[in-house]
């Protein structure tokens, strides 16, 4: 079967069009590294959809989670450019089907509106929102989920008084990752261990976890 006959769909790494990719970067925690990474995107006039920096499973190692909508080819090149940076340990990039992800959204609405209008309350229940703060003048709700879900609530709240809205960057867990502990041991050894070419030439048979 030749490649031409297969129609790949978004979510598959062989899909040639643009799709969401989650880039996970394990790096040293250093001033200026965020800039070094972000200019790799801006140099190519590629927009970052969301970017989160956080600690990782290992103390002292930072984890960047970057969301972009690009083709596999472009993302692969970006990932190699990022991994080339001296203070970056490892870069992974995954399609949506390969990660579990969440985003957190906060909504500020008028308390008067929601107490008067029962539909609003129903909406909030329907979207799994929780109240973070309830004051006389306003109430803040939060929703955790995918962009479509948090967006849907924005749309639903539009007819009422949505005073403020904010959504966090995506954070994601890679389904087949066993974490970075073992990899780090290789990195700390004098001689680099046999990692390499994971995205390209190596067989993809030895996945660690399957779902």
């Amino acid at each position: 079967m030749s490649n031409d006959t297969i129609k790949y769909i978004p979510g598959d790494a062989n899909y040639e069009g643009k799709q969401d990719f989650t880039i996970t970067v394990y790096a040293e925690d250093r001033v200026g590294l965020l800039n070094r990474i972000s200019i790799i995107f801006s140099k190519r006039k590629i927009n970052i959809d969301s970017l989160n920096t956080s600690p990782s499973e290992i103390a002292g190692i930072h984890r960047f989670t970057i969301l972009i909508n690009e083709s596999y080819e472009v993302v692969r090149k970006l990932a190699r450019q990022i991994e080339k940076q001296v203070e970056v340990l490892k870069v992974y990039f995954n399609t949506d089907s390969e990660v579990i992800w969440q985003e957190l959204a906060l909504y500020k609405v008028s308390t008067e509106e929601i107490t008067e209008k029962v539909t609003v309350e129903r909406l909030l229940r329907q979207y799994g929102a929780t109240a973070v703060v309830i004051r006389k003048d306003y109430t803040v709700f939060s929703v955790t989920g995918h962009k479509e879900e948090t967006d849907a609530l924005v749309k639903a709240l539009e007819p009422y008084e949505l005073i403020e809205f904010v959504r966090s960057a995506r954070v994601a867990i890679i389904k087949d990752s066993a974490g970075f502990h073992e990899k780090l041991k290789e990195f700390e050894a004098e001689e680099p261990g046999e990692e390499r070419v994971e995205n390209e030439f190596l067989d993809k048979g030895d996945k660690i976890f399957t779902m």
Partner: protein
Amino acid sequence: METLQDIETKKATTTSPTFKGSGSQMLLNALIEEGVSTIFGYPGGAIMPIYDALYDYADKLEHILVRHEQGGIHAAQGYARTSGKVGVAFATSGPGATNLVTGLADAQIDSTPLVCITGQVFAHLLGTDAFQETDVINITTPVTKWNYQITDAKEIPEVLAKAFYIAKSGRPGPVLIDITKNAQLQIEEFEAYVKCNHIRSYRPKPKVRIEFIEEAAKLINSAQKPFVLFGQGVILGNAEKEFKAFIEKTGIPAAWTIMGEGAIPTDHPLNVGMLGMHGNYGPNVLTNEADVIIAIGMRFDDRVTGRLDKYAKQAKIVHLDIDPAEIDKNVKAEVGVWGDCKETLPILTNLAKENKHETWLAQFRDYNQQEIDQVITPELYPSGEEMTMGEVLRNINEICGGEAIIVTDVGQHQMVACRYAKFNNTRSNITSGGLGTMGFGLPAAIGAKYGAPNKTVIAIIGDGGFQMTPQELGTIMQFGAAVKILILNNRFLGMVRQWQQLFHDKRYSFVNITSPDFVALAKAYYIAADKVDERANLRKALETMINHEGSYLLEVMVGRENNVFPMVPQGMSVSEIRLK
């Protein structure tokens, strides 16, 4: 009798297991530990403590006072390129630091190992828009392999060790270390200096994977028309011998990018010439006929490939590179061999079958003959009255026999020099390849001479490029670098003019450049000089220049509207190369 101060100074300038002194002294000790002997720099307010310490290190560190920081960094590049060592440049904060940017970008794209030290305002003034404060770390991030700001002297030994390790290991590149003035002044007790050979997040070279080399060898062994393209990676990896052994065993014709020129001698029978826009006829046309292309330490720059979607589509590509980000970047490889070519090439040679590709090589010779007849002979032995750049190069080849180091600036003369200069030795062709920095030639030649003091160093520069950094004549005057400066003057910004002639209906927009009296200018700097405007005097003038004891400037008036051919017009395929 030694005074107390003498004793203090002596103590301060000797590196001992533990050393008490200023951050500035520690910095200079670190440079000495790293084998640095020559620094190109320019002092200023924020780097004064380092210069103050340098005063006591005159016997160990030679400091060349350049006339502009850009000159300093280009000199450091020239030094690194001829010596194979890390080039070192000093500059002060603010304008001193920003003047380094062009050289950093040049070194980054041409993978030149540099460590640049910039002074910075006191740490407590950072972010206050202090006098001569500039955010040099953020300005230089895109053009450095690594950069770091030191605000505490305690960091100096470790950071310097890392800087040198990063600059020279793997794919080399420029590193900039910015040191705030308080850290330069800070007195500390320092531990013994330890060189760096491992950073956990940094992998200078990927591990060699034998299975990919085996695949590469299989392709090479079954190829009918294999073709080797090599770049500077062969030189940076000190793999000239390994490379020669590979092509000689396999009998594969090899063509070079301008950064790879000289890795094998010009007259090696398998050296079929230069790739790319102004490269040779055969290598360009036959790129689109080869069945297997073996790219070694090169990065498929657009000046090499021409139009990508018509580039070597019939060929299977084997790409050897130390930088994984280069493989599949511009041209998709059938087999990517990640690793240092000094390690991978011997394995590949071992697996490759002995071969001779006589009929295939004959095709290169046929194209070469056409190029000789139509382009090379008229350029090297012109029948017209006007002198050509090519005949100047032919004369240099005849006088130097391929032993000289040729440093070029950027433009027509650069292409002519790369096409026609003869090289017997590696690290002899010093040019700004990736960035194309006009003004590179003169300062780089100064550094090249310090890096290879026993060689004849000839800087070939156009009348335009020379006027971008002529101030470095002052450096030559003061420090006596015996650089031979050859200005090929066509009274035009020739390359831009050529494009305007060919692609813009001869609308010569601001390419008509006038020049000062270069001979008088050189003489104002006490540099011997001469000017030639007719062929009859050319040979003798060149001999005088080359045999002259010290530095020398020779201006040669060449034809105004000569073009460099062959040429792959922009947006065209390499096989559409034009001979005229």
